[in-house]
């Protein structure tokens, strides 16, 4: 019971402080607005990025939100190229045995010419609180990505979830070089607070990259580094919320070599 009460209190705090969406690690979609920074991790946030993956790809992600074991997030994702398009699969689980939220997603993205791609994602989400039963909902996400000019990329995403109003998000990325990406994004809709974000990714060396970012509402910073070991991409990062503290995270991605 003590664990259950603690979980509820923590959840209340998180929601009150606009901490972050439960199943959305911050800054994870930054790589989508680029040419050289796509991976299966970011593509699962934006189905239009799936066909831009260079090959078969799989990854896992875990984070311990605000250093609390009972509100950890685990994700597994898969990207499968298929001609001019690609399929994506993702499963995610957030919480603990007393309270958890789960999501299963399937997506397909397709290239339209050299500069534009589009995609659709279907998700089934469920939420369970011990003693209070389970609730579930379906959601559909559709979006498009494109290159505006030279090294400037942009994208738009619309998410429809049962019982919730439409959510819109979008962003712009500037690939200053093949090793440096700046991106900015927003999310709004349904009377919710508009959230803005700015991210930077930079490869110091061919095998070592850095990531920095901030979001508004909540005012949240995140930073991390990534190692590229042949086909393996290992990223370690942390987010920082001024009131709730640190959220460490790890991502491991296997990416088939581009032929």
């Amino acid at each position, binding site marked *: 019971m003590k664990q259950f009460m603690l979980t509820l209190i923590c959840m209340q705090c998180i929601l009150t402080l606009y901490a972050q969406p439960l199943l959305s690690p911050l800054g994870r979609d930054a790589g989508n607005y680029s040419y050289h920074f796509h991976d299966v991790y970011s593509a699962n946030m934006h189905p239009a990025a799936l066909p831009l993956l260079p090959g078969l790809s799989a990854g896992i992600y875990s984070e311990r939100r605000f250093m609390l074991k009972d509100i950890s997030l685990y994700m597994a994702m898969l990207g499968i190229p298929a001609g001019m398009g690609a399929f994506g699969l993702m499963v995610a689980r957030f919480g603990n045995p007393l309270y958890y939220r789960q999501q299963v997603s399937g997506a397909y993205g397709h290239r339209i010419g050299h500069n534009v791609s589009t995609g659709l994602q279907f998700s089934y989400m469920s939420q369970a609180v011990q003693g209070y039963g389970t609730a579930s909902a379906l959601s559909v996400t559709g979006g498009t990505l494109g290159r505006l000019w*030279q090294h*400037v990329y942009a994208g738009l995403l619309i998410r429809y979830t049962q019982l919730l109003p439409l959510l819109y998000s979008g962003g712009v990325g*500037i690939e*200053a*070089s093949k*090793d*440096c990406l*700046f991106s900015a994004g927003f999310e709004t809709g349904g009377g919710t607070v508009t959230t803005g974000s*700015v991210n*930077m990714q*930079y490869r110091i060396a061919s095998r070592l990259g850095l990531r*920095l970012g*901030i979001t*508004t509402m909540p*005012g949240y*910073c995140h930073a991390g580094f990534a190692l590229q070991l042949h086909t393996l991409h290992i990223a370690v990062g942390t987010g920082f919320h*001024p009131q709730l503290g640190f959220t460490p995270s790890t991502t491991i991605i296997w990416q088939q070599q581009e032929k």
Partner: protein
Amino acid sequence: MLTGCCWWLLSMAMPATARQQEEALPAAMENTLENETAGKEAVPEDDADWQQLNAYARHRIQLNTADAAALQSLGILTPLLVNNFLTYRRLLGNLVSIYELQAVPGFDPDIIRQMLPYVKVGDDLEPHYSWYDYLHKGDHTLLLRVGWQPEKSKGYLHTDSTLPHYAGNPLKAFVRYRYNFPRRASWGVTMEKDAGEPFLKGTQRYGFDFYSAHCFIRNRGALKALALGDYTVNMGQGLLNWQSQAYSKGAAVMQIKREGEILRPYTSAGEYYFFRGAAVTLEQGIWQTTAFVSLRRLDGHVNTTDTAADMQTATSLISSGYHRSATEMAAGGTLQQLSGGANIRCNTRRWQAGANVMYHRLTPALEKTPAPYNQFDFSGQQLLSGSIDYAAAYRNIHFFGEAALSSNGKPAIVQGLLASLAPAADMAIIYRYYDKAYQSLYAKGFGDGYRTANEQGLYMAASLKMHARLRVDGYMDIFTFPWLKYRASAPSGGKEYMAQATWSPAKTRTLVLRYIFRQGSSNEVIPDNPVKVLSEITSGSIRIIWSQQCNKQWSIRSRLSGSRYASAAGKQQGWMLAQDVGWKCRAWPLGINARIAWFFTDSYDTRLYAYESSVLYDNAVSQLYGSGWQYYINLRWKVNKRLTCWARLHQTIYSGVATIGSGWDVIEGNKKTMLQCQLIHSF
């Protein structure tokens, strides 16, 4: 007598053949002035950087022999660009032509255009100047400036039974003679009298209220710098001592590092941020050492309840420099400040590191009236502090930082980096931790506030060149104040974001869009609560500036500024629309520039700050609130190659008010006028 002296100096100058050239203040400096005015509620009087730029316009920096310090002193180049230039020159040899600057990584046309008036490529040998050259190759400049406000404020009015509150007349006068051979020699005298201060009477029986003199020699063998008289000391990243101008958050998002010479001559009219005494810097190989000592008097309120001199204490230090009323005059020069310090540093091509120490002794001791917000401020007679600083370049990244400790054992730390991530992308990060009880008298570290204490924060900025004609700059700053501060009766924090796009469709046209969002906390009166409470404040400001050089004669600048302020007490906003016009006569050496501005703000909280073009070397920033019109007109007449005159009329007309200002500066009526005349003679 003064007039006689001036004419004598002018007549001495007649045979000389030097020429006068004026350059406008760079845009980044304009923004710095606006921000500093907003932060300190007073326009800074330091014009040293402006003088330096104009001196370089006459004695251009030789790019093939310039060292890092010379390039930094321009104030235009970031450490990354300086490093890129020196690496380029080392690897590929001397520049053949000024056009070769385009080949240096990071030097885009905009940067080169800013540099061009101050640099040259040609004589490739390091000049060896004799003492004769030190004494004769520079320029003598005499500056005379007077300004007055025709509308008499309350402080100048008397009644049948009382004298005026201000002892002097409303005339503001400034005189400066300076000999300057950039980076070699400088000497001169500065005299100033603020409006309301007496002249040749009362406590000012020697004429001006403020006198300053300096003699400065630089780069003479092992003698890197020798200062006698008034000088400034600028060490590390400003945690221990920084008395010159320093960039903070603003439009120049990458210019966050304090850099430049430790010792600099002091020639400005400000009466606080300098030392008076002697200083020397010696250099041997990669080692450089500096030592200085100063003895001067400061203004402050002294508690005179104890008649015994050794029992007296000062309750505050005053930096305004005003000595207009009996109270201000009584506080003038009441404290004696003995200061001394030293720096030793090692400079190599890739890195530099230094150790600094600073000592102050105040007589009488400073004992501020205790209050919750100032309980960690410096009190006592002696303040000893020390720091170490470093800067290093590794590939495309430039690291810098300083760690300081004051005598109470409290630290202040600043660490930063500047990185050129790609040819079109630069980034800056700076973290600062200033303990709430860190103490220093002349610190100017990077931060949100203007006190290098009681602050922690992280600043990140990026500058992206999206296109040959489009640049986007932005920064974000997240900060906390662990203890109480001005207008915040509890620990607080906040964040600030800025985004700026600069579009230059042609060399002669520029459009700037800037938006700043800020969230912080401040004591506010909220409805149905008589006591001010700490409330969240959000504010935003937008600025759109269109500048165009129409032809050789005409230039225009249009500006729209808006501000928004939201707190628990409600929402307010303010707007300003200004149009500047510049005209240069073809037939006559006459130039005119003028502005007309309309402004409207709901309250003081949405006030707007606008940099103004004024007479040369006069920092002018308007603080606008209420509603009304403002206009000014400046005339510049270049009599001959040596003599230039300025005249300026500035007026603000407020609507719906019967008085302007507050306290002894209140004016009856709704108009406030300022007239200025200036003469500069170079010889």
